[in-house]
């Protein structure tokens, strides 16, 4: 058996998953190959550490809580939406608000003088003038005033 094949069989050997033929061949290789045997022993040591790790018991009252919740509790549901997609809506809203703020400031600056002029004009008393200057009445008045002065 070659070393590469032997190394591939280390884990299944430790887990008792080899056929009889593979097991015999593997053990024979381990007797002859120092490097493979060292790797096998490292993996076996790791396996023993893990299998000796602490086992946890369900906490006190666990079954009571499950039975109490089984009718009412809904198991947690998770939206399986990609991470970037979850931010898309928020980012889009923030961009729109940002555009609105920037546009508003820009437009407001451009119209400020014209706006004040229009506001002033809207409060002018000229609109109440019965004979605006450019009307027929207004021309007639201008002519009679000029005549009186003469």
């Amino acid at each position, binding site marked *: 058996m070659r070393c590469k094949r032997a190394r*591939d069989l*280390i*884990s*299944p050997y430790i*887990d008792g*998953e080899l056929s009889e033929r593979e097991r015999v061949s593997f053990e024979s290789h381990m007797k002859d190959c120092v490097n493979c045997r060292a790797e096998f022993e*490292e*993996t076996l040591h*790791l*396996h023993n*550490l*893990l*299998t*000796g*790790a*602490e*086992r*946890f*018991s*369900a*906490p006190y009252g*666990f*079954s009571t*809580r*499950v*039975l109490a*919740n*089984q009718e009412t*509790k809904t*198991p*947690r549901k*998770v*939206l*399986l*939406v990609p*991470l970037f997609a*979850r*931010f898309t809506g928020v980012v889009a809203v923030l961009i729109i608000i940002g555009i609105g703020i920037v546009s508003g400031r820009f437009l407001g600056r451009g119209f400020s003088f014209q706006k004040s002029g229009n506001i002033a004009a809207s409060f002018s008393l000229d609109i109440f003038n019965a004979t605006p200057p450019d009307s027929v009445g207004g021309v007639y008045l201008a002519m009679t005033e000029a005549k009186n002065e003469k």
Partner: protein
Amino acid sequence: MVNANKADDLSLISRFKAGDISAFEEILIKHQDRIYNVCRYMLGNKDDAEDAAQDTFIKAYRNLRDFRPDSSLYTWLYRIAVNTCLDYKKLPFFASIFRGTREDDEVVNELPSDEPSPERLYESKQTGHALRVGLKQLSEKFRTVLILREIEGLSYEEIAEVLDISIGTVKSRISRAREELKQQITKFTEQK
């Protein structure tokens, strides 16, 4: 032993399907420790582990009527538990912020000794810490197969059933996971 357990589980399921709700309580008590244990190792802290284990049994309760006897009950429960734990790790971003960080619990390796010396206890804690750190560094698929194989003691066939993958894939993942874990532990111990 395995066959006796399987027959016992099938009997409980039959009783449950016939309307005997107390059969579910027996199933719960019989399997709660192994399910809680796998959740604890997959999620790393006791609060999440209890939530996930509870959700597992609630889902099991709601779907037990559809259970098919061609698989064993405990591999079916493990499958629900593993998928539940993997879903827990996919929490939406804002939910994970407001939930806050839950500290991982220390998983201490205990040596089978009647009167461990202080040196051995220290060594045991260091080993356990290195193992915990190493396990945490693994990818989900590697960590899952190692937990099912090394800690839960499932066979390759049972792991294939739980994860819905081929036995060849199980074999390959376990080999690679052990190699990766060895490297992570070596890296960790060299940094200290």
